[in-house]
């Protein structure tokens, strides 16, 4: 979470795709974009490492792609709409890809969604207790 001094820094479990993230993730996201072409998806699948080496990505970004580590990819500047191009070419649903970022299994995640999703209660501020103590006008 690279959100120091930003009004969204205190939202738990959340990385906002701002200019800072867009900068460090530029080449990673452009790599993802290339997977919108069938020919590129094929080349990528045949030799992922070789395909990745054609992009000006950091070693950490390449490793995270190979490991399909979405939390890590987000931390390294990936944007979810770009990253789902990787999971789509793996034949994964968006929900399955998204679930890997939570502390739930895909089944547990889908069950949570079926039951109405993750509640905002306790999930608004990193220190939830501190938030609930605030007056309404301070809550933004």
């Amino acid at each position, binding site marked *: 979470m690279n959100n120091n001094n930003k*009004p*969204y820094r205190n*939202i*738990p*479990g*959340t*990385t*906002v*795709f*701002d*200019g800072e993230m*867009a900068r460090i*993730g*530029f080449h990673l*996201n*452009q790599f*993802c*974009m290339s*997977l*919108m*072409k*069938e020919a590129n*998806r094929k080349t990528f699948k045949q030799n992922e490492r070789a395909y990745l080496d054609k992009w000006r990505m950091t070693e950490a970004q390449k490793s995270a792609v190979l490991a399909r580590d*979405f*939390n890590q990819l*987000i931390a390294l500047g990936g*944007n*979810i*709409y*770009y990253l*789902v*191009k990787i999971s*789509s*070419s793996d*034949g994964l*649903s*968006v*929900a399955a890809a*998204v*679930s890997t*970022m*939570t*502390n739930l299994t895909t089944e547990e*995640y889908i069950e*949570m*969604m*079926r039951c*109405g*999703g*993750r*509640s*905002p209660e306790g*999930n*608004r*501020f990193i220190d939830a207790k501190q938030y609930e103590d605030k007056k309404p006008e301070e809550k*933004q």
Partner: protein
Amino acid sequence: MAKITSGLGTSHIPLLGYMVDKGESHLEKWAPIFDGYTFTKKWIREQKPDVVILVYNDHATSFDMKVIPTFAIGCGEEYHPADEGYGARPVPVVKGSPILAWHITASLIKQGFDMTIVNEMDVDHGLTVPLSMVFGEVEEWPCQVIPLAVNTVVYPSPTGERCLALGNAIRTAVEQFPEDLNVQVWGTGGMSHQLLGERAGLINQAWDLAFMDDLKSDYKKLAAISQVEYIRESGTEGCEMVMWLIMRGALNHQVNEIHRHYHVPVSNTALGHLIYENTDTMNLEDKP
């Protein structure tokens, strides 16, 4: 003269398009989702809009990291459904409305909106899923479409105030177009959802329902919501709701809500849908 007769809000969740394309939209188990559009399909056949101004966001499809417009308006002749990584949706090509679109664009720029003019692009689920949900499975889309793509991918999105004002300016532009046209404005996206991080899966039903309540008359309150508050309350992708404010701004202050539908979940997302009809489109003082 051209006239905006009604507005429509709807989620544009990709899974809905997938279900339609697989022929699964009629399955009993999905009835709680699709039944909410039965009224809409009947209504649109009666309304017969000539043109729909369809407000959506491009999800890293036609715009990549190189160029990210805040407001992009389609002035092209037609738009093809995009390959978003699993082949293009098998739906009709979207016919543009270039003469009206250029008229609106010129008017918006003169009114102080810094539009990006787009003459060629593919359109993703953000635009084609609403068409499928409203028109169903058709050989050709029965109206022309002006795509209006709003950046909600890179922070910051345009503010709610700006979106409401844009809707307002669109109405002014449409009403100055000499041809008799029945124009609708659709706002798409939302409702609450978060697709990333440990907090993924966040849904805030109370927030969503209050949003739909307030949109009718208290839309100025909604326009004041910051993107940070959207993210906090309704998830990182919840800020797509600003696009409903563009639709709202294009209507009269007085509208009738003639339909509403809300369902949780579709995939990772809360689905919302509503329809407004203008009560009196002649009253120019009546702008939001």
